[in-house]
């Protein structure tokens, strides 16, 4: 087995990407793209069709062009970063540069762990050499598809604005002139990522991509090539997200992506299903994204592994489970949502609007519900808008997938309530879904203050750019953004701003302290752990071993199982007869049958009669022949013979030659692994061979 980390990713929206060799099959884990890099582009100026706003539009694009012309190109002084530094061109998208180094046709399987992990998939699937099977959970596939379609629509706005003959942004001179912050994004921290920028795929690419996707339920078995059994288990991060379990004849592997154990919306992490896997690939980098929290983590009680040394396994497990499932995280998350809600209500009450460009479906659903409740309790009639080209489909979809939600929400369903009150809210005008900001219907219904959920969290694409331009000067309005995004850079084109900005971090994975407890419970044999997180985990007293991986390095792991398991059908086994060897205490027999590979298991069955009666390999003789024993045996048969010992060069080629004189001449050459009988007479040869066989085990 082999693991190569292609990208460690960054945050919720940019999952890690790995490629793994399992039993000779290459498995790619996730195919994301780095949408935070869109920050280097300038958003479009205010759309003339959208809700008009008298505020001045910064003509940054033109200014930039002028500036550039007057610049002395020989100088390399970094320009200060301001709104004018952003690139005014149709955006390009940053894919995983390291993945480009792989031959697409070598990938056998692609496993997607969350919708964000498939945003780069059309780049792969549109390559004609792409032959891999792609597995995604049903819910993630649908959500991912909608995200990609929405991205294409949002991008289309740029295409229309810049026109088909838009100038290329990848002009070396221009890029050289970019401020350092932007250059770092363009080239990556180590300067190698320039090649990863590509033009966005088309709607047709997305459609074709989805045709190549096999969607699965949680815990549904998919079988690749009869050999690998692939199963997705809920990871709790968001709706449809998963960890993967891969069973091969050479051992089992669990791929653990960002996981949440008591999730507020999505089905919680099903870690029990991953117990006793041989190898765990730990790929939850969320704790490194919140690096400043390391110290807190380490001070948490129970973080040190050696606390458990005196406890029995059961105790350790139950204690570990308690840590894993403690309600603190859940409550903290709820408190955050309540806080956002109360800030939003304050803002509404002071006449401002609330703009929420968050791309997490779970959070959006939670907030929608809270806003509705708050509004109802205050008896306020403030509309909630969800504006996106896929808003309607997404909302309809979330209403028919109760199987993918957390227990609390499922219980709600069983007690007879609807999953969501979206339907009612739509009916009585509390909620509106619109495909675009410039739809006529929206303009007639539009009312402020209001709540708006809309893409895109990068603040470069989609309706959010227009609305932010509209409200950025309003000190009563509120923008809710996530931590982890470079807010300074993201807000750059909208400065100066008076709008309030609430930056919050949502739970995006497990804390390191929990990861240690998790490993204790899972009891793998071997763990592949990020080098990046190594320093932050206290050494564990465990029975399993660790390897640490880092970006773009390949780790080799020996197969957990040397031999594969084989089922022999009883009908076949009944026909078998053992021989007990003279030389060792071993029973041995010849085996013949038909091999079937089915769902990752080998089975040897009785073949059809024609197969079973076909030619058998020669008899197998086990043991050794000693010339004296043979001589005795020959003499018993009444033969006369003499022995001649021959010593080869260096003693390596020793042999005994037995000359049979009577009843007819024959020569028997006895070596360590071979006896050669040369004789012209059939009968004598028969007798001699019988004598030889009597000294050996014949199978």
């Amino acid at each position, binding site marked *: 087995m082999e693991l190569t980390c292609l990208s460690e990713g960054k945050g919720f929206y940019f999952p890690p990407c790995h490629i793994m060799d399992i039993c000779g099959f290459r498995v790619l884990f996730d195919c994301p793209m780095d949408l935070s890099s869109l920050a280097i582009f300038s958003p479009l100026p205010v759309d003339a069709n959208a809700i008009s706003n008298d505020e001045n539009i910064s003509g940054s694009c033109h200014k930039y062009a002028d500036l550039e012309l007057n610049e002395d190109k020989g100088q390399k002084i970094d320009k200060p970063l301001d709104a004018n530094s952003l690139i005014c061109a149709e955006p390009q998208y940053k894919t995983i540069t390291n993945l480009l180094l792989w031959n697409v046709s070598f990938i056998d399987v692609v496993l997607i762990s969350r919708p964000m992990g498939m945003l780069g998939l059309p780049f792969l699937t549109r390559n004609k050499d792409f032959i891999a099977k792609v597995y995604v959970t049903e819910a993630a596939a649908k959500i991912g598809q909608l995200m990609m379609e929405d991205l294409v629509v949002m991008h289309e706005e740029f295409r229309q604005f810049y026109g088909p003959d838009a100038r290329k942004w990848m002009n070396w001179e221009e890029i050289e002139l970019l401020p350092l912050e932007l250059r770092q994004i363009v080239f990556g921290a180590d300067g190698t990522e320039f090649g990863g920028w590509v033009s966005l795929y088309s709607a047709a690419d997305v459609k074709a991509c989805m045709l190549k996707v096999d969607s*699965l*339920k*949680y815990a*549904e*078995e998919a*079988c*690749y090539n009869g050999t690998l059994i692939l*199963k997705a288990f809920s990871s709790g991060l968001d709706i449809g997200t998963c960890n993967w379990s891969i069973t091969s*004849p050479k051992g089992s592997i669990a791929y653990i992506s960002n996981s949440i154990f008591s999730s507020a919306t999505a089905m919680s992490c099903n870690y029990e299903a991953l117990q006793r896997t041989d190898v765990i690939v730990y790929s939850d980098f969320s704790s490194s994204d919140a690096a400043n929290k390391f110290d807190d983590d380490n001070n948490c009680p129970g973080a040190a592994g050696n606390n458990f040394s005196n406890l029995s396994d059961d105790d350790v497990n139950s204690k570990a489970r308690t840590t894993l499932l403690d309600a603190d995280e859940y409550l903290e998350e709820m408190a955050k949502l309540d806080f956002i809600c109360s800030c939003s209500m304050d803002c509404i009450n002071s006449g401002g609007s609330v703009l929420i460009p968050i791309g997490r479906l779970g959070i959006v659903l939670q907030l929608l519900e809270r806003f509705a409740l708050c509004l109802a309790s205050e008896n306020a009639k403030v509309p909630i808008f969800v504006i996106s080209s896929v808003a309607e489909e997404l909302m*309809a*979809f979330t*209403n*028919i997938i*109760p*199987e993918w939600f957390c227990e609390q929400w*499922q219980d709600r*369903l*069983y007690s007879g309530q*609807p999953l969501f009150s979206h339907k009612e809210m739509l009916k009585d005008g509390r909620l509106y879904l619109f495909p675009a900001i410039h739809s006529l219907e929206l303009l007639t219904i539009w009312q402020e203050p209001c709540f708006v959920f809309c893409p895109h969290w990068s603040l470069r694409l989609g309706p959010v750019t227009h609305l932010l331009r509209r409200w950025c000067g309003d000190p009563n309005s509120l923008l809710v953004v996530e931590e982890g995004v470079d807010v300074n850079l993201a807000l750059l084109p909208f400065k100066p701003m008076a709008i309030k900005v609430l930056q919050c971090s949502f739970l995006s994975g497990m804390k390191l302290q929990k990861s240690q407890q998790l490993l204790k419970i899972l009891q793998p044999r071997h763990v592949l752990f990020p080098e990046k997180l190594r320093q932050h985990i206290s050494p564990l007293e465990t029975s399993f071993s660790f390897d640490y991986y880092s970006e773009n390095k390949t780790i080799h792991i020996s197969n957990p199982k040397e*031999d*594969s*398991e*084989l*089922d*022999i*059908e*009883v009908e076949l086994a009944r026909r078998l007869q*053992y021989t007990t060897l003279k*030389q*060792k*205490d*071993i*029973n*041995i*027999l*010849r*085996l013949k049958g*038909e*091999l079937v590979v*089915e769902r990752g298991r080998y*089975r040897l069955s009785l073949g059809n009669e024609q197969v*079973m009666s076909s030619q058998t*390999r*020669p*008899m*197998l*003789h*086990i*043991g*050794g022949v000693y010339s004296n024993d043979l001589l005795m045996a020959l003499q018993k048969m009444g033969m006369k013979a003499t022995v001649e010992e021959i010593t080869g060069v260096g003693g390596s080629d020793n042999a005994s030659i037995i000359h049979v004189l009577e009843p007819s001449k024959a020569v028997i050459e006895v070596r360590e*692994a*071979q*006896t050669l009988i*040369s004789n*012209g007479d*059939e009968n004598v040869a*028969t007798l001699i*061979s019988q004598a030889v066989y009597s000294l*050996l085990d014949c*199978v």
Partner: protein
Amino acid sequence: MDIECLVLGAGQEVGKSCVVVTINGKRIMFDCGMHMGYLDHQRYPDFSMISKSGEFTDSLTCIIITHFHLDHIGALPYFTEVCGYNGPIYMTYPTKALAPLMLEDYRKVMVDRRGEEEQFSSEHIVKCMKKVTAVDLKQTIQVDEDLQIRAYYAGHVLGAAMFYAKVGDAAIVYTGDYNMTPDRHLGAAQIDRLQLDVVITESTYATTYRDSKYAKEREFLKAVHKCVAGGGKVLIPTFALGRAQELCMLLDDYWERMNLKVPIYFSAGLTIQANMYYKIFINWTSKKVKDTYATRNAFDFKNVCSFDRSMINAPGPCVLFATPGMISGGFSLEVFRQWAPHEGNLVMLPGFHIKISISCCLCSKTPTQIRLDQDVFIDVRCQIHQLSFSPHTDAKGIMDLVKFLSPKHVVLVHGEKPKMAALKEKIQSELGIKCYYPANNENLCIPSTHHVKAVASDAFLQSCLCPNFKFLETSSEQDSELAITHNIAMPQLQVYDDRVCEGVLTLQRDQNPKVVNHNELMSALGIKTHEVKLAQCCEVSREFPDYRHEHIYSNMPPLLLKGKMPSQNTSHTVNSCCTSSMAGEELAAKTTTARWKLGGGFELELRFEYEIGGGAERGEMEARWWVFWDEVVLVEDGGQPVVWGLEVAGGGKGDDGT
């Protein structure tokens, strides 16, 4: 080990489905239904057969419920809350949501309306359902370390599933009720090709063959349309669940298309909740219905409104869905009394119903007057139409499913005895599969699959697998014929290798049996092998002409040995090897070890090629040539080695090789 099937219900009858299957020590109860035809103890399965002491939690590994019909789930609250079973229970998500409605509806009819003694309370139902684990289709659920279960789509009603259960190497499928043809609201049953010891299948229509359901649906719509067009009222007594939504969907759609304005009413308050579940679980309906969810959820009925008592005698045509499904009591009966005496009205009766209900009397003949109570008679002058489409598979469907799954044994339940007997004969004669139809409380023992567990070396597996794979995918033509293509089935890939696999199995104390390749014995296990060869030695010598200036002589006449094989059949491998000595100083002979496959036992030709370096003027070569007849020959001739003569051909003392 045997698989035991203890049939507690639905043995040679329809009603109180309950089969307890024991596989390798695990005991699973499939369905826990009640019989609607009995009011005494016979309404429930005889649970004492499971455990005399009444310790049910320890006696069963789990309970699996296939769908929400009462003949499959009706006894569950009684079993968990009154009998005290406290172990795991599995059913699909829709079943978990809809079953309590069904149970509560039934409890109400029995207790509140008929005044019967309560078998379980509302609270029991709630508590019972709390113990249920919901599963999704195709999820592989690990019940415990050994028992694996998986649900497959069964059609029939929303959330109905067939269940696969596997313990060790033994596996079974219990179908519950299923439908092999899609209808407007549900898809057809769909299952993977599995290795099965037993399939336990329903056989409601063991001998019936049906046409497509669409024709029957049209018939139904026409009858309703005709009645309302003439100003009549249509009464459709149904259960709150399943049939009501299906028919309602048909009517709603028809009303849209025909632009009808006649009101369609739903009577019970329950159905509103049921409709909500149908909307949410639209993914469990037919492909056509679920594909339209984003634009319009098909269970969002546009033309349907709720009904109250005061409207019974309101003028004008209407369609009314009323519970319960039998007109034996409740609201259905109330409406029936009022509407039945009028000629222009129509009563739709469900296709299958229970003996004690009135509806049965209605369809067997057309009475003008039926007796309801001691002194209450109803004049029936309205039209009676029987709904003849049923959500059960017909005989062809059962045969198709059994053929598709090809289990080692089939057990028939949920049917009528004589029809089951006929189907059993058909399965045994046409498919060659053993078939049984045990009666209630019969315990059937069926031998189960057991594999010998071994480990195999890579070299062995590779030698078996490398050459010619044969791929078999379940989504083959046969499947589509079976209408099993409702979803895009995950292709279950099977790889067959036509070659015979040969290896050596070794068994050492305290170790798993291990299978290796012949040539691995020494390296893998330290077992020394010894080759015994029989050889015929030919000594040949040959003179070479002058080849002084040449290096390689391709036109050198070959030295040939010719032999005749004694055996008549098959092919043999013949090994030869040769040692040679050269007289000429700088001659070098390329000693070849040649291997031939001979067909049919015929002429064998061993060819000796030379390569002679330049410089030699003349040479003479002597070679000892052994021909080894492999042990095959020995085996074929009854273990007796056979050696036979060879003659040298093509010139022993060659000169120019002409």
